[in-house]
Structure formats: structure tokens, C-alpha cells
């Protein structure tokens, strides 16, 4: 069978080779999959097998935890909380790329770790901003966080956005960003990257379920065309969203970033298919459940046709491939 080229977000970083390579399950390297010869389909600039060998055939140490000082906390009616905290400069740099996320520790018990996307990583002041929607027993604990106290985090992790290749490919182009709810938080590093690459951005924001656009302060830093509208209407793409997409594509955009729940991404993909525009490139949030983030626990895995199991804590993918051939049983 012809093997599929897989992209690993951690390949070639200081966290590579990881435990997967150590146990013969590397996503990329054939030699670290128990094979005898190189079949390096998706070379990321380093030889993972050599890195593993030079490290005594052991995985590199995983991510560290950091105690960080909280600078500011904003509580939005106990529905959502925005936390700004100081972090080491190296970590702030590592978390500036689109898709960066951390685990926030809310209890001594590690099961209470929450995977949270970075909303902003201020490299000049070494301040990181996260926004968390209060939903259950883990997030509830964050309501107690106060300024000048410590917050414990683990990171950096990077696979919070799918289609990173497509984000990087947008240069001096017209791009459309559709964001909804808590998706506004992970949208910000994407907007920053797109703006840095001199793109002309149109951002459409659906605040629900919140009452305010909590990203407005950060968005104001960029020269973008922004509007607020409902994107989903009873689980379907709203008529307004359809008009926006169509107009943007007619206007010359050929890329859309979807920052919201999977249902929004799925609706956009289907709509593009309906209007025969599968050529439009996409990026979206990675909404898989994360627990360890290191390729070990399996919380983020999903099954696909052809007996394929994908580990989405590490595997970069195109948004369309997340839904194509996915098994629900």
C-alpha cells in the first residue's frame, strides 16, 4: 500500500524525538516506525532517527511546567474569563505562532489540566493572554484566579490550528476570517500572522454565546475590515454567512480561516462544496480533546477509513481531511 505523507507539528523541534519515536510509532520517520530503511516522505529538515540515536535512543524530555504571575483577570459574567500573565521570554516567543496552546493546571491532580489556546503572546512585555469559557469542573476552578497570584502552566504546544501551511501561504492576498464564540481567542494569532504577511483581512465575528466581542481591543491594532453577524443559525450556516463567503470569493479571496466549533468548519466546507469551490484553501481550529498533548494518552485520536488512527495533538492536517473518511464508531 502506498503510504500517506503525514505532517507532525513537533518534528524537528526541541521536543523531537518524542515518546512516539522512542517506541517505534513516530508519525514521520520510517526508521522510527520499526522499518529498516529511510522512506522520508515528509522531511522536516532534521533526521529524527539520528536525533533519537544521538539522544541514546530515548525521547527528549517533554514540556515543562511553569509558575507564572497573573497580571490581570477580567471576568465576563462568570461565563468567560480572560487572564493575562507574565511568562519567561523563551516561552512567550514559542507561543507566538498560530495554533499555540498550553495546559493550565487548576489542581494538584493532573486530570484537571485544561488545554487552552493562546489569544495573544506579547513578545515585548512577555505577557500571555488566554480566554477561557467556563463550562465544567475544570474551568470552574479558574474563576478563583486573582491578580498577583500564580498560575501553573505546561507548554508550549502548537497544534491548535489545522491548515497552518495554508496560513503561511497567504501573502498580499485577500483573506476571509469567520470566528464564533470562544473561537475568537485562537483566531488572534492567526489574524496577527495574516496581517504580518500583508494580507487584506475581512473578519466576521459572531459573538454568541457571549454578549461582547472580547477580542475587539486586540483586533483594533490591525487594519482590518470587521463586522459582526450571526454565522450559525440553528446548526446551519446562516444565509448571511453564505452571502459573506460568496461575496468575498467573488472579490478575489481564495482562503478562509474558520475559528469556531467543528460544526462551523463543517458547514463552511460543505457550503464551499455546494458552490463548487473546493479550490478555496482553509484553516480552522483543532477542536479535538487534548489531555497529555504528547502523543501518549490517545484522547485526541480519531479513526479514519483504511484503519488509520490519527493523533491530532501532533498531526497537522488540512481542515477538509479532518472530516473526510472519519469513522464515528
Amino acid at each position, binding site marked *: *500500500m502506498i503510504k500517506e505523507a503525514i505532517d507532525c507539528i513537533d518534528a524537528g523541534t526541541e521536543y523531537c524525538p518524542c515518546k512516539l519515536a522512542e517506541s517505534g510509532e513516530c508519525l514521520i520517520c520510517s526508521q522510527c516506525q520499526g522499518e529498516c530503511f529511510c522512506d522520508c*516522505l515528509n522531511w522536516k529538515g532534521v533526521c529524527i532517527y539520528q536525533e533519537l540515536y544521538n539522544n541514546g535512543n530515548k525521547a527528549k524530555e517533554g514540556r515543562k511546567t511553569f509558575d507564572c504571575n497573573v497580571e490581570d483577570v477580567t471576568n465576563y459574567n462568570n461565563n468567560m474569563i480572560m487572564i493575562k500573565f507574565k511568562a519567561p521570554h523563551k516561552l512567550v516567543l514559542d507561543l507566538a505562532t498560530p495554533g499555540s496552546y498550553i495546559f493550565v493546571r487548576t489542581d494538584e491532580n493532573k486530570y484537571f489540566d485544561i488545554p487552552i489556546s493562546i489569544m495573544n503572546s506579547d513578545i515585548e512585555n512577555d505577557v500571555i493572554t488566554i480566554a477561557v469559557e467556563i463550562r465544567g469542573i475544570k474551568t470552574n476552578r479558574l474563576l478563583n484566579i486573582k491578580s498577583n497570584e500564580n498560575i501553573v502552566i505546561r507548554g508550549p504546544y502548537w497544534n491548535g490550528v489545522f491548515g497552518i501551511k495554508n496560513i503561511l501561504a497567504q501573502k498580499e492576498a485577500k483573506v476571509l476570517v469567520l470566528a464564533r464564540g470562544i473561537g475568537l481567542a485562537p483566531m488572534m494569532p492567526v489574524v496577527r500572522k495574516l496581517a504580518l504577511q500583508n494580507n487584506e483581512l475581512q473578519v466576521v465575528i459572531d459573538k454568541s454565546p457571549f454578549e461582547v466581542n472580547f477580542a475587539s481591543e486586540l483586533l483594533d491594532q490591525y487594519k482590518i475590515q470587521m463586522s459582526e453577524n450571526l454565522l450559525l443559525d440553528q446548526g446551519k450556516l446562516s444565509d448571511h454567512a453564505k452571502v459573506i463567503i460568496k461575496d468575498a470569493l467573488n472579490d478575489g479571496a481564495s482562503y478562509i480561516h474558520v475559528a469556531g466549533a467543528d460544526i462551523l468548519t463543517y458547514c463552511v466546507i460543505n457550503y464551499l462544496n455546494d458552490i463548487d469551490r473546493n479550490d478555496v484553501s482553509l484553516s480552522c481550529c483543532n477542536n479535538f480533546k487534548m489531555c497529555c498533548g504528547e502523543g501518549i494518552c490517545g484522547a485526541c485520536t480519531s479513526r479514519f477509513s483504511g484503519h488509520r488512527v490519527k493523533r491530532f495533538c501532533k498531526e497537522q492536517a488540512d481542515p477538509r481531511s479532518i472530516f473526510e473518511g472519519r469513522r464515528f464508531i
Partner: protein
Amino acid sequence: MKVVIIGGGWSGVASAISSKKAGADVTVIEKTDLLLGLGNVGGIMRNNGRYTASEELIALGGGELIEITDRVSTHTNIDFPGHKHATLYNVNMIEGEVHKYLTTLGINLMMESRVNNVKFENGKIKGVYLSDDTYITGDVFIETTGTTGPMGNCLRYGNGCSMCVLRCPSFGPRISISERCGVSDIQGETNNDSLGAMSGSCKLAKESLSQELRTQLDSKGVVVLKVPVEDVNYDKLSTKVCQQYALKEFAENIILLDTGHAKLMTTYYPLHKLRKIKGLENAKYVDPYAGSKGNSIRYLSVAPRTNDLKVTGVDNLFCAGEKSGLFVGHTEAICTGTLAGHNAVRLALGLPLLILPSSIAIGDLITYANEKAGTREGRKDRYTFAGSGYFKRMKELNLYTTDINKIRERVKKINLDNIFSQKLC
């Protein structure tokens, strides 16, 4: 008709020339910034039976590259242990000359372009993908990616990446195209049950040698120095690719050849030991950069093929050079490359494919190496006109000669004179 050649080493370049001359639209995809691959650190031509093969190739109408190597040679007709009438080309001149020649022929050269995968459907390659996702279609493909590296293979079967001229850490790994099509590669073996073999020579910067050695190299082309008794290592010979240089003399002596750099005829040699030898006190490696610890590992990826050089199991893929057998050397690569390029055009036109008869050395080598690759013993051997078992065979079969007229007559007798110059479409 479009012929796509993957790999711009000696065999890829030879395929490009012969398929272009036969009338195809030709694209060469090369991952590094230089054509010729290991040819940039080689340099030995026309030694022993390679003389016969070179002249056969000229008589067959495919002698362009032989003429270029002759032209940029710094030494002709030199002898060194086990070898006679060698020509040494200057490795620092050759690439530019060949590059220029291919450009004048109108061959499309895609440099720093690395093939990542293939689109394989119904037994045929439809196109190849580059690492930047560019998709390149073609009618016929020729794989001349060689069998060396990448880093993981050099680590598993050798002493790790020694930073050779292929520069995988910079330009990325070689992919086996045939293996991508589901055709399993053949590996060369050694006597101790391991796979692959280590490249057999290094290059020292000529300027790092003593004035005396430099003068001798410049005038004679060859220098032989005694290895201190305590450092003689006969075991190293068995791991070597180039069995024609795996002679006792090559373990007991340091043999330097002037190919622009000083070619050191050994797989690797720790620098501190090398520097114990008079005249080499300041010696420095230029290829592989880590010549103290190892050299590149080859023969891990030979494709099964028929004697017309078509890969078995893929309808429109040919192979040449090391990819087509356990061959050693530029001459062998140029010969197989020339045939593969010519046959690629024949295949696209629906013409019968050319198989060179065993009455000439080139035909015999291609057939003999293929036959041998089927046996375990045969996979432990290497095949070259220049020595090892095959040169012995050449002499036994009376194929070896340096009489140019005799070679021309032989080629004429089988009606193949200038066959590679014929435009087929």
C-alpha cells in the same frame, strides 16, 4: 513526448542527453544545487576495462560525456596499484562544463527540487510531487536517484552522516521512486550479513599537503605512501563499495590521486592517524567533511529491472546508475544512463526496447550484473569495468581491449554504431 528524470548524477545526466537526442522533451529534477552527484568527488575514468567501455560508448554514438571528462582531465594514462591507463578529471571543473552542455541542448534542469512522492495509477507513474507540492507530469520517467543515503540509512548501516557531497541535511533525503510504486528494492550485501557498503574514497584539500607531495601529485597524478604498520587495517577493505580498490596495496599504503583535490583511496581514515604520515601533517578533509569517522552508505536501494533497464512492475519507469544494479563508477553510470534515456523514448513511441548484446562490454556488464543480483553471493559483489570480478571476466571473454579500431568494428558488426545519435521522433 516528455521524459522526466529524477536525479541529476552522472546517470541522470547521461539519460537526459540520450533521450534529448532521441527527440524527447526532457526535464531533470535534481535535489541539490549541483549536477553529477558523487561525480563531483570522483574523477577516475578509463582505468582498466573502463577504457573499453568508454570507447564503446563513443562508437555507439553516446560519447559526449566521455569527451567532456577527457577534456577537463588533468592527468591521462596514469597507472596506480591494480590499475592501468587511468584518466583523472578535475572535479572542480567538471560540473560547470556538464551543466553548460545540458543547457545548450535545451534540457530543462530543475535544480534544488526534491521529489517527495509519486502519483501511481494502474501500473503507471502519472507524475511526481516535489517537496514544495509542485506536481510534474510526464510520459516516461527515469529514476537515477542512486542508492546512497539519506542520513538514517548512513546511520543504521554506517557510522552516521559524514557530511558528503550529497548534503542530505541541507537538501533533504533521497526517496526511492520505485519503492513508492510498491516495487521492493534490492540491497547490496556484505560478507558479515550487513547491508549496503561504504563509499570508497575521500578528498583531502591539496593545499593541506606538503609541498613535496603537491609537486609529485601535480606532475605524476599519483602518490603512494606507506601506512604505519600499527595502523594497517585489512578489515576495512571488505566494507568498501569499490572492490576494484579493495586490494592489499590499498590497506598497506595511502594512495593519493590528483583529481583537483587529493583523492584518498580509502573509505575513511581518522585524521590524527593520517597526520602521522610524512607530508600529511596538516591534512584536511574536503569530502566527506567528516572523513575521520565515516563515509556515505550505498547500495540500499537497487530497483529490480530487465536488461533494457525498465523497472519491473512499473510500466513507464526506467532506472540507471547504481539504481539499476550494484555498479561502481561514473563510466558505468554514464553507460546505463545513456541506454535508459534512449529506451525511454523508444517506450513512449511503442518501439521495441534496445538490449545491448553481450558481445560488447557494456551489454555484458548490464546483463551479468542483473543475473548476479538474483543470488545472495551476487549481491555481495560489485560490478565495474575497472576491477573486481567483472574485469577478470572481461579479460576472459576477450572483451577488454584498448584498441579503438577493434572496438569500433565490434560495435559496427552488431549494427549499433551511432545508435544513440539517432533521432527517433
